[in-house]
């Protein structure tokens, strides 16, 4: 397939998913719709996370910070501004924070970057908590003006579609190529003319914009928010997990994994909360060990090579258990001894 055909295929798949999600509330139950909402939220979060962190290999744990910033924007501003404006402002504030944060920590790599983004998330969480306690004198905020459920659903759906569309588009631009180059060899990309600092900050801000917007849209679902619910680091971790399980470099990986994850979450969380977390961890370990490209990199050949590996392993085991391996060793030893006599 040439690149135009790939583009058409991707856009069609995206439209099909969007249509399906659009139709869902009309025939499915309340429960399924709320599950779909969680799913769409994670599609938006993890697609936009993979857009920057996947191609550049900068593991950011700051998603929950931007999410929380968006949620608090809604909590404070929703009465005075319209729904769309509030979300835009939430995204805007997240972008500003991301630019400041990015300028401070984006020259670090690997673990240092991950730990520092996590630390900054905690910093923001405690700063907001302190501010709320000492200045406004509250622990949390109650959202009184709340839009209808349908509006929330459509907004999050739009954000999810936008996140995937932006991923499709960025992959085809110079900006996306620059991100790939940074991931492959940052210094080499620099010497070939990429202003890596600017590109990284822009990518980080783009990720933050989506996280902020999703946070702003999802805040109204809770009706009561406090810093520990919306700055919950678990949101950031889950985004990372979903993207890793789905495949950081793939377009559809985050979407697939988000669907699997939400189904798992909703069906297991109520009955067996421990099993849910365990299965998530198990899935991650299996993916890292046997499927580093993520679920979306599964091909027929992958199954074939797994089957071959298993067969070889079983053959080896059989030889060992039947004593054939031991006998072979002895034969080799005897041959060696005989060759010494000659």
């Amino acid at each position, binding site marked *: 397939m040439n690149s135009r055909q790939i583009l058409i295929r991707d856009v069609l798949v995206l439209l099909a998913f969007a249509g399906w999600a659009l139709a869902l509330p009309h025939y499915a139950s309340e429960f399924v719709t709320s599950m779909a909402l969680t799913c769409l939220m994670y599609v938006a979060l993890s697609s936009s996370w993979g857009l920057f962190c996947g191609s550049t290999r900068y593991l950011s744990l700051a998603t929950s910070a931007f999410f929380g910033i968006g949620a608090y924007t809604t909590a404070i501003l929703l009465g005075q501004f319209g729904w769309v404006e509030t979300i835009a402002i939430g995204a805007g504030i997240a972008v500003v924070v991301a630019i400041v944060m990015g300028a401070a920590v984006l020259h670090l790599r690997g673990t240092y970057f991950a730990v520092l983004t996590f630390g900054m998330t905690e910093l923001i969480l405690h700063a907001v908590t302190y501010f709320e306690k000492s200045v406004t004198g509250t622990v949390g905020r109650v959202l009184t003006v709340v839009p209808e459920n349908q509006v929330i659903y459509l907004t999050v759906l739009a954000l999810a579609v936008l996140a995937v569309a932006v991923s499709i588009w960025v992959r085809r631009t*110079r900006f996306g*190529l*620059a991100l*790939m*180059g940074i991931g*492959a*060899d940052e*210094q*080499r*990309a*620099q*010497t*070939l*003319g*990429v*202003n*890596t*600092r600017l590109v990284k900050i822009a990518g980080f801000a783009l990720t933050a914009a989506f996280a902020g917007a999703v946070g702003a849209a999802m805040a109204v679902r809770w009706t009561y928010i406090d810093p520990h619910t919306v700055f919950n680091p678990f949101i950031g971790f889950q985004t990372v997990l979903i993207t890793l399980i789905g495949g950081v470099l793939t377009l559809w990986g985050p979407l697939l994994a988000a669907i699997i994850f939400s189904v798992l979450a909703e069906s297991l969380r109520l009955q067996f909360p421990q099993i849910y977390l365990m299965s998530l961890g198990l899935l991650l370990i299996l993916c890292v060990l046997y499927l580093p490209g993520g679920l979306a990199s599964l091909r027929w050949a992958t199954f074939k090579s797994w089957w071959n590996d298993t067969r070889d392993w079983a053959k080896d085991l059989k030889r060992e258990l039947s004593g054939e391996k031991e006998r072979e060793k002895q034969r080799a030893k005897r041959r060696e001894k005989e060759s010494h006599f000659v």
Partner: protein
Amino acid sequence: MSEQATPLLEAHNVTVRFGGLVAVDAVSANFTPGELVGIIGPNGAGKTTFFNAISGVLAPTSGRLAAHGRDLTGRGPHRFAAHGVARTFQTPRVFADMPVAANIEFGLKFAGKRRRKYLFWGDEVDVPWALRDATSILALIGLSEQAALPAAAITPSQQRLLEIGMALATRPKLLLLDEVAAGLTEAEVEEMARLIRRLRDELDLTVIWIEHAVTTLLRHVERVIVLHQGRKIADDTPHNVVRNPEVIEAYLGDEMAEPGSEPQDEEVAA
């Protein structure tokens, strides 16, 4: 030093310090258009560090760098690349997962990008014919057949060529080559030297070439800079450098200085 043209790259008292260690000690050098300059020196003389400084990878501790008379001290490598300074790395650093042709296109899309004839379409202007697109650059370095292979799948010596191709894709005026002939066979080294001369002659590039194989280098360059313990101890033609007592003592050893043992160097001096 040469007075005939404005220097392409000026390094003025460039010093690089790592903690207490002075890796490059107040080195000044000018590079004029069309020169083929070699840099030699024993291990740890600061050759690669000097390269890192003049390509912007490492900001000098003190000193001044300018390209086309414009001050670039302390700027990032992408600024140097935009001003026509391209470099290769000692160990090939190609984008292993991308195809060979995509590796070349990377440079063409960033530092090598030029204005188009009619705003958004038409050919790019001010581009040497041999560097017009990825295909022509691959033909120039001789990797046309490997264009579709991933860069990880080609041989190390081909990766070195690809490194040069990636640097050429930025459409440079100055090419910095860091030990491009290391680990190559005798024949491949000659091939590489011929390619480098061709780049200089056909594309009017200034080439600065670091090499460990001194005899090969001296045979092909027109000017040699000798670094020793971070300092520049000589900057002259190969003919004079091999007779320079300080250089002989520091690096070359006696056998190089004997008149009979350097027949190659006569033709350069002539």
